[in-house]
């Protein structure tokens, strides 16, 4: 290591001017992070969802009558799509933030000109981007398998999917800020996210459940995320489109406020 040549030092009198937004750099890093591990972060979730479609939709679906007048394979695709983007959105935010805290790499971000809300937004943006990539992959595989192609309500689908992506990414970032160990990260997924997904009407209509379970299902946030996708794709669900969108976006907004409060308060210690 030879002695450094004298650097041209920046002036302390000039206001900060970025040649390229630090937020865009961090967002790019968040996308690069999951693309660097694409086998695990993208291919795995797409493959497992495709297997669900094949096993439940194609094989078991032959023994199930239509649900709400829709073939079983076609019926479960919106729910599986919702589950896939919820899982990857959650896991992306959780692992990205938890690992940044654990490795203390987050200090590099705190010390930089990045503002707290830019760090928050970029981490959430990474989860949304991964959800979009995996969701597109799921649909590319699932729709041909179930001979589905049409979208019943594109506006509900787009608005609903944006809400689902945002809610999932925010809850992932919140979990990533709370986790104390890698064990916490995996426990949150297997003990909270997965059961809520399976009980959220992924494979059935809650109207077919006993009344008590029907009511209880409505307290499961994933139920609403599944509903909004089902209404968007199929034009029918267990609740009205307005209610589904309202609940999904209220959830996304509430989680966004919570997540922002954590970053604003600086409670992101290793």
């Amino acid at each position, binding site marked *: 290591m030879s002695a450094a040549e004298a650097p041209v*030092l920046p002036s302390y009198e000039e*206001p*900060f001017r970025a040649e390229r937004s630090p937020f865009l750099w961090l967002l790019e890093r968040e996308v690069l992070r999951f693309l660097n591990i694409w086998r695990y972060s993208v291919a795995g979730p797409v493959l497992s969802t495709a297997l669900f479609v094949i096993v439940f939709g194609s094989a078991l679906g032959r023994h199930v009558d239509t649900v709400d007048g829709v073939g079983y394979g076609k019926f479960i695709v919106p729910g599986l799509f919702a589950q896939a983007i919820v899982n990857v959105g959650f896991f992306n935010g959780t692992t990205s933030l938890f690992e940044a805290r654990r490795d203390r790499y987050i200090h590099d971000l705190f010390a930089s000109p990045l503002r707290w809300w830019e760090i928050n937004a970029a981490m959430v943006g990474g989860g949304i981007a991964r959800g979009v990539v995996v969701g597109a992959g799921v649909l590319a595989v699932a729709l041909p398998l179930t001979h589905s192609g049409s979208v019943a309500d594109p506006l509900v689908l787009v608005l609903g999917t944006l809400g689902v992506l945002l809610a999932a990414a925010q809850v992932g970032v919140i979990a990533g800020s709370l986790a104390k160990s890698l064990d916490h990260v995996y426990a949150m997924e297997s003990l909270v996210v997965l059961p809520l997904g399976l009980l959220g009407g992924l494979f059935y209509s809650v109207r077919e459940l006993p009344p008590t379970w029907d009511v209880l299902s409505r307290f499961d946030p994933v139920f609403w995320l599944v509903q909004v996708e089902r209404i968007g794709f199929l034009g029918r669900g267990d609740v009205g489109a307005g209610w589904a969108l309202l609940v999904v976006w209220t959830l996304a907004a509430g989680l966004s406020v919570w997540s922002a409060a954590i970053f604003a308060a600086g409670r992101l210690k290793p």
Partner: protein
Amino acid sequence: MSPTPGAPAALPGGGSPPALLVRGLSKTYRDGFTAVSGLDLEIADGAFFGLLGPNGAGKTTLIGSVCNIVRPTAGTLTVFGHDHRSREARRLLGLAEQEINVDRFLSIRQILIYHAGYHGVGRRAAVRRADELLQLFRLDDKADVRAYELSGGMQRRLVLARALMHRPRLLILDEPTAGVDVELRSEIWRLVKGLNAGGTTVLLTTHYLEEAETLCDEIALLRGGRIVDRGSAASLRDRYAARDISEVYNRVITAEEVAS
């Protein structure tokens, strides 16, 4: 003429503002532990400043507060006249922490490039600077590997290279030579001395007292979250009638710790 937006307040006499000015800094953590209490510190532009003290004296809390990693309970901190929370101040600060805190998902070249990006550097300039520093720190043949694949000495060099990516005016080095061999230590000091000669202000914490004595223009002794004395190595030696800074340290820090 009105001052430039974001510019620090002009100083009487037109001199440059201090690289770091800390007034009344206190930090009490949520568990009730007070790490720093009413700390005042001023470091002149261009200085090579050493901060000495035992573990738990408040060095890391002070550095964390300056670099926005720790939120102070009270006090004001300015970097070249800018509030330390401003983007102007952050742009001027470079931090190499004691721990190897690098991004595990990126190659070491990408670590440098993205770090520069977080400081607002454009892509072309960031790539050019990264390649220059990889060469300077003899890491160019490892540019595409991940940091955890590097040896301890290489990781230390990477952390230092990252701190220099955005050409900071105030470079903060927290135990930069902890756990490195003698050869690398002397290389690091040669490099940092070169940077200081070029105008970069250096704030250094180290447990190697003889190095602080040799390198630093001024030394502050920190104990229990307060600066108990400061001055040039020569003035501290004279004041305590000591042969070297180790003896000063023993009298000011170690003896007081034992007494308390």
